[in-house]
C-alpha cells in the first residue's frame, strides 16, 4: 500500500518536472516584451497551473480515480490556455507587437516566419502557436502529475484514517501542492532563464538532465512523503 503510494508519487512528481520544461517561460524579460514566453517565472506559473488542476481533481472526489486524474489535467490545461491567450491579447493590443520568437526560424504548425516579426534588440514577444501547444502539453503532464499525487495521497488517507472528507482533502491538497513548489523550482533552475517549448533548441539540451534530476528529487521527496503519511496513519 505504502509502496504503491511511493511509486505513484515518484511518477507524479517526475511528470510535473517534465511538464515544467514544456511550458514556454519568458520570466521577467517577457513582461517587458524583451523575450517570448509567459511573462513570469517558471515556478510561479507552475504553481498557478498546479493549483487549478488540484482544485479540479478535488471537486471529483466521488468519481473513479481515472476521472480525478484526467480532470486535474483538464483544469491545468484550461488555466494555462486562458493565461497564454490573454497574455497574447495584451501583447497584441496593449503593446502592439505580434507574437514571435527568435529561438526558432519558422513555426512548424502555422508556417509563420519568426525573425522578421521580432522587434530589433529583443528575443521576441508573446507566445507563438508552437509554444502555445507546448504549453498545453506541459500543463497536461503537470496536471496529470499533480492529480496522481493528490489522488494517491487522498485515497490512502481516506482508507486508513477516520477523518472527514474535508480534512483528508485538505491534507492531500497541501501535500500535492508542495510537490509542485519543490519540483518546479528544481526544473526552473535547470532551465535557467527562458525557454520556448519543445521546438526550442534549448529544450533538447535540457530535457534529459531535467528528467533525471526530477526523477531523483522525486524519489527523495516521495520517500519523505511516505514516512510522513506512515506516521499519520500509525502514529
Amino acid at each position: 500500500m505504502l509502496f504503491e503510494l511511493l511509486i505513484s508519487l515518484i511518477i507524479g512528481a517526475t511528470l510535473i518536472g517534465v511538464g515544467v520544461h514544456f511550458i514556454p517561460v519568458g520570466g521577467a524579460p517577457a513582461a517587458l516584451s524583451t523575450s517570448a514566453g509567459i511573462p513570469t517565472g517558471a515556478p510561479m506559473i507552475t504553481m498557478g497551473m498546479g493549483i487549478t488542476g488540484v482544485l479540479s481533481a478535488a471537486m471529483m472526489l466521488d468519481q473513479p480515480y481515472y476521472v480525478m486524474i484526467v480532470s486535474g489535467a483538464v483544469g491545468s490545461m484550461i488555466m494555462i490556455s486562458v493565461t497564454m491567450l490573454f497574455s497574447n491579447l495584451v501583447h497584441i493590443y496593449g503593446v502592439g507587437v505580434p507574437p514571435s520568437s527568435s529561438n526558432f526560424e519558422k513555426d512548424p504548425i502555422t508556417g509563420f516566419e519568426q525573425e522578421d516579426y521580432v522587434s530589433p534588440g529583443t528575443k521576441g514577444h508573446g507566445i507563438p502557436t508552437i509554444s502555445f501547444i507546448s504549453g498545453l502539453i506541459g500543463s497536461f503532464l503537470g496536471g496529470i502529475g499533480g492529480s496522481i499525487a493528490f489522488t494517491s495521497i487522498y485515497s490512502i488517507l481516506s482508507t486508513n484514517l477516520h477523518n472527514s472528507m474535508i480534512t483528508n482533502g485538505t491534507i492531500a491538497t497541501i501535500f500535492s501542492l508542495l510537490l509542485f513548489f519543490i519540483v518546479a523550482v528544481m526544473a526552473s533552475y535547470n532551465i535557467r532563464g527562458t525557454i520556448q517549448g519543445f521546438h526550442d533548441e534549448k529544450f533538447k539540451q535540457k530535457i534529459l538532465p531535467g528528467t533525471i534530476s526530477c526523477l531523483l528529487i522525486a524519489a527523495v521527496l516521495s520517500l519523505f512523503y511516505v514516512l510522513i503519511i506512515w506516521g499519520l496513519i500509525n502514529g
Partner: protein
Amino acid sequence: MDILLNMMLVAFMGLIAIIAGMFEDLESDVASTSNPNSQVQLAPEIGNLHKLFNRAISGEPLLVGTMATISGTVAYVLFTLEYPVILVLLLSSLVATMIQVVWSASSYMGRITSQALYNQPLFLDVLKKHLPVIAAFAFITLFSITTLSYIMTYLLNPAVPITLPVVTMLMGITLGSIGSAVGDIHYGAEKLYQNYEFGSGTPVSVNGNIATKSALGSRSSIDVVKFCSKFGGPMTGLCFSIIIFLNFWIYLVFGKIGGLIAGLIIVLSFLIFNTLIERKARLKYGKYEKK
C-alpha cells in the same frame, strides 16, 4: 433547483473573480510589485531618479497567496465564533490589508534607502499618496478572494472539500500568477517605456531608461494605475474570471465525463483563437525594418 442555485453561484463567482483580478493587477501596478519592478529598481542606477512607488515583498503569487491566507484564516476563526458572514468577510480582509500596507511601507523605504548610493531620494509624499491607494486596492482584492473562497467552501453544492484558509491560499496564488503573467505586460512593456515608440518590444540596451516625466511634472504610480486600468487590469480580471467560471461551469452543464470532453474542446478552441489573432496581428502590423 440545486443546479439553478449552483449556476447562479458560479456566475456570481465569475463576477467576483473579475473584480479580484482587476484590482489585484492594479494594486501590483501602483506598487510596482512584480516583474517590471526590476526596471524601477534599475532606473536610479543609470541616473533616472523617479517618483514611482517601488515595492517587491516577494513574487506576486506568493504575496497575494500569503495575504489571502491571512484573510482566510481570520475569516475561519471568526466563522467558528459565529459572527455574521458579511462582518467576517469585511473584518478578515481589513486585517490582511493592514498587514499588506505595513509591508508595503517598510518595503518602499527599504528599497529606496538602498539606492541612496545613486542619490535617489525617499519622498514622503510618494509614501502618503500611494499607501491609501494600495490599501484600497488590496482590500478589494482580498475581500473578493475571501468571498470567492467562502462561496466555494460553504455555499456550492457539492462544495470544494478543502478548508477555507487553504482555498484562499489556492485562489491567492493562482490569481497572483495570472496577474503577473497577463496584466504586468501592459505596465512593464508599455507604460514604463512610454518614451519609446508604440508597437515594439523593449530592447535590452534601453533597460532602466524608464519614463519619469508625466504630462504635468514627475510621473507617479497613480498615473501608471490610471493608464493600466484601461486595459491591463480588466484583461487580468477577465482572464481569472474565465478560468474560475469554466472550471466549475463545464461540470455543472455537461456532467462529470461530459465536462472533461467539453473542457478539452474549449482548450482547443482557445488554441485556434490564439492562432487567429496571431495571424491577424502579423498581417496588420507587418514586418520590422532592419536597422
